[in-house]
């Protein structure tokens, strides 16, 4: 049997072509359903716009969190399942700081530091919000980034570094252990309850007109865009203007070769954790500020979407992570036009699976950390 014959048979067995046809048909049906819905008025332009806006913001958070995951994935060569719990850690650290700054003097320090565990303090009563307590929010974001960096370096030193040379799968399994320990320690300290964290009523909002109605833009939406955009630009410059980006690319291609050419690999790894974890912590904090609730499971629930974004964009590419994040965020939000709303996240996972089948190297393919 010749190679080409085997290849053809391979393609047939796995039913690649029927799948591709299926995907195209589904896409056509979606376009038709959307256009006819808009035409007949079944779908309002304003509600579509509001879904797109929501998806875009969600996507920015996923993308921001995805940069860190993508960097460690390509350089340390393993899928870090604890990444979601880094997000949660950042969110709790940042919110504890915001609570402390906003509420010191009137409430007990313990209750503030525990982010109101057991309903002792309420974020709404403290007036947490980017306009009502700007200093608390800025400090919260900084501490979220800083503490997540410290946490990531600590975990790297004691968990990942001793088994740096093991296979990616061994590291992946270890990271599941880290995720468990971290998530349930957070629950042990901060409690299992989901709490409201912001003064949701007093966040300034404007209604943007959109053809047949309006959609709402809040101050937290705007601050999320500013922070995410600024950090993404910063990482871009950091990796473009310094040698770090080049060193990281060299390491993700071939670590031994990189070490031979004099790249201090351990230092690059540490820098990777610092940049990645800093972004992750701030992403976690901004996520919680934006959605207004905080629970110990938040990061874990976001993790699979972050993985989807990173795979979609191509592992190792920060632009891929951002682009993938926005695609995944939009998918999870906008897909409710076509399917029941419970399946928004399922749709995002399906997009990831389809990408893995047809273009496993990602849509912005190639290892282009920089």
């Amino acid at each position, binding site marked *: 049997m010749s190679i080409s014959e085997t290849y053809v048979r391979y393609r047939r067995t796995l039913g690649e072509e029927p799948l591709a046809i299926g995907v195209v048909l589904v896409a056509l049906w979606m376009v038709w359903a959307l256009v006819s819905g808009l035409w007949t008025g079944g779908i309002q332009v304003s509600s579509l716009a509001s879904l797109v806006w929501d998806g875009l913001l969600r996507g920015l958070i996923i993308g921001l969190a995805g940069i860190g995951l993508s960097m460690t994935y390509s350089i340390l060569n393993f899928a870090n399942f604890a990444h979601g719990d880094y997000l949660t850690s950042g969110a709790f650290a940042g919110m504890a700081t915001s609570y402390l700054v906003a509420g010191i003097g009137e409430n007990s320090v313990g209750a503030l530091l525990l982010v109101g565990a057991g309903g002792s303090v309420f974020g709404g009563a403290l007036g947490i919000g980017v306009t009502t307590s700007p200093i608390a929010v800025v400090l919260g974001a900084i501490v979220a980034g800083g503490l997540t960096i410290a946490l990531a370096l600590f975990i790297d030193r004691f968990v990942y570094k001793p088994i740096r040379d093991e296979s990616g799968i061994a590291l992946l399994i270890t990271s599941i252990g880290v995720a468990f*320990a971290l998530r349930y320690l957070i629950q042990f300290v901060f409690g299992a309850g989901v709490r409201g964290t912001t003064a949701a009523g007093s966040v300034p909002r404007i209604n943007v007109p959109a053809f047949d109605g309006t959609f709402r833009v809040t101050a937290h939406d705007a601050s999320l865009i500013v922070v995410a955009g600024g950090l993404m630009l910063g990482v871009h410059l950091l990796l473009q203007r310094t040698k770090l980006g080049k060193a990281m690319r060299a390491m993700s291609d071939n670590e031994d070769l990189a070490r031979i050419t004099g790249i201090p690999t351990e230092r690059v790894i540490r820098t990777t954790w610092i940049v990645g974890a800093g972004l992750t912590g701030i992403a976690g904090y901004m996520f919680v500020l934006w959605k207004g609730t905080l629970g110990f499971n938040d990061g874990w629930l976001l993790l699979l979407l972050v993985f*989807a974004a990173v795979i979609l964009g191509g592992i190792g590419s920060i632009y891929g992570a951002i682009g993938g994040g926005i695609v995944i965020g939009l998918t999870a939000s906008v897909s409710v036009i076509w399917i029941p709303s419970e399946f928004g996240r399922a749709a995002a996972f399906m997009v990831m699976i389809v990408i893995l089948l047809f273009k496993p190297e990602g849509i912005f393919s190639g290892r282009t950390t920089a």
Partner: protein
Amino acid sequence: MSVDDLRGRFEGLFERDVTLVLAVLGTIYLAYVLAGVAFGYGLRGQLNSIANLTFYVGAFGMLALALNLHWGYTGLFNIGIVGFMGIGVYVTALVSKPPVAQGGAAQVGGLGLPLGVGMLAGVVVAGGFGLLVALPALRLRADYLAIVTVAFSEIIRFTMMSRTFQSYTVPDTIDLTVAGVQLFSLDPTADTIGLGGGGGLILNYADPLEALLRTLFLWEPYLGFVAFVQRTLIPNNPKPVIDGLLYGIVLLIGVGLFYLLLSRTGKSPFGRVLKAIREDEDVANALGKDTDRFKLTAFVLGSALMGLGGILWYSSRGSITPPSFRPNITFFVWIALIIGGAGSNTGSFLGGAIFAGLLYEGPRYVKNLVEAAFNLGDAPRNFGEAVAAFGSLDPVPFLVYTLDSVSQLRLVIMGVVLIWLMHNRPEGLLGHRKETASSVDLTRPSGGDAGNAAAADGGENR
């Protein structure tokens, strides 16, 4: 080396494994009995505690064995176990629940077929979904396969929770008419059918144990035995206790069957190809094996077994709800497998037993023991109050809070144990027991004349 010699060797290994398994199980059970004595349990309490332990040993043993087929033998990184378990038990429920809704209007009915049919359907559908996942996903790298399978299990959970599939009304008759010709007409017994949404399903079919015993014509003798126990040992209502114990034993028999099936599979030519794929898929491919087909078969078989494991775990419960099928269960099974050592069936079962006894149920017993020994009073409501007492140099509230949160700290302990294992014993507690992809023993015979100078021929002629 003659065949008999080889067989003797295998049997010797099996003997040692049996003693090992019995020793580990004996230790765990002894610890539980002693804990029961410390609690001042009567016979009833002791039996309850043992039944509970046996249940989890059986459940985790079975699932770890099924996972061993995926990861230990074939090297397929499946972290969607709980999805297959959920499919198994939900399909069983759909097929076997009685048709008339008994739990009020909110409850959905089922097809009302016998439980055996339902279980078979559950296993088959779980295997079918295994095929559905495997067909596209097996081409992927191990870490991608991991992410796809965990995403799959989450999609399954979203489907269970969804209002869309909550309940359907089944028409009284289903007619399929094409161009005026009636092809068939079906009169289904079901009125409503569905996945029950977030509220889950009430499993109001026949008790699985009763169904099993009735099939084996053992139901009457069993009732007689229960009556006997009531007269002699436990005067008030012993049936639930004996039911629990017997169900645990049924699960252990299930483990035995899984073990037999998987070790036979592992030693067959099919199993050797699987191990070869785990070692190096390209080589197996180059030797003319259609590795895709082998991986597919192994994945489907393992998924079906996971479905069966899920059925046996959940079908004796009164109801099932979607939150039971979170990915945590998947990781529990993984920890069990890694404790025992992937690649060895005995190790898988031992890992399951140790996980169930020490990590899954153990912390709760420690908590109860401490609470029985010291009168500690009420736990602080939150971490803050617990730590605040340190100000007055009183560590007791913190300790009480820690004990009170043992169900969460249990997962922290599991995580730390997993990290420790990956650092220190990645091959599992049993040591390196991975079976080789060969029909003959590849290890060099040790001892004897190994040190002789005559080994100039490379020792090949021995």
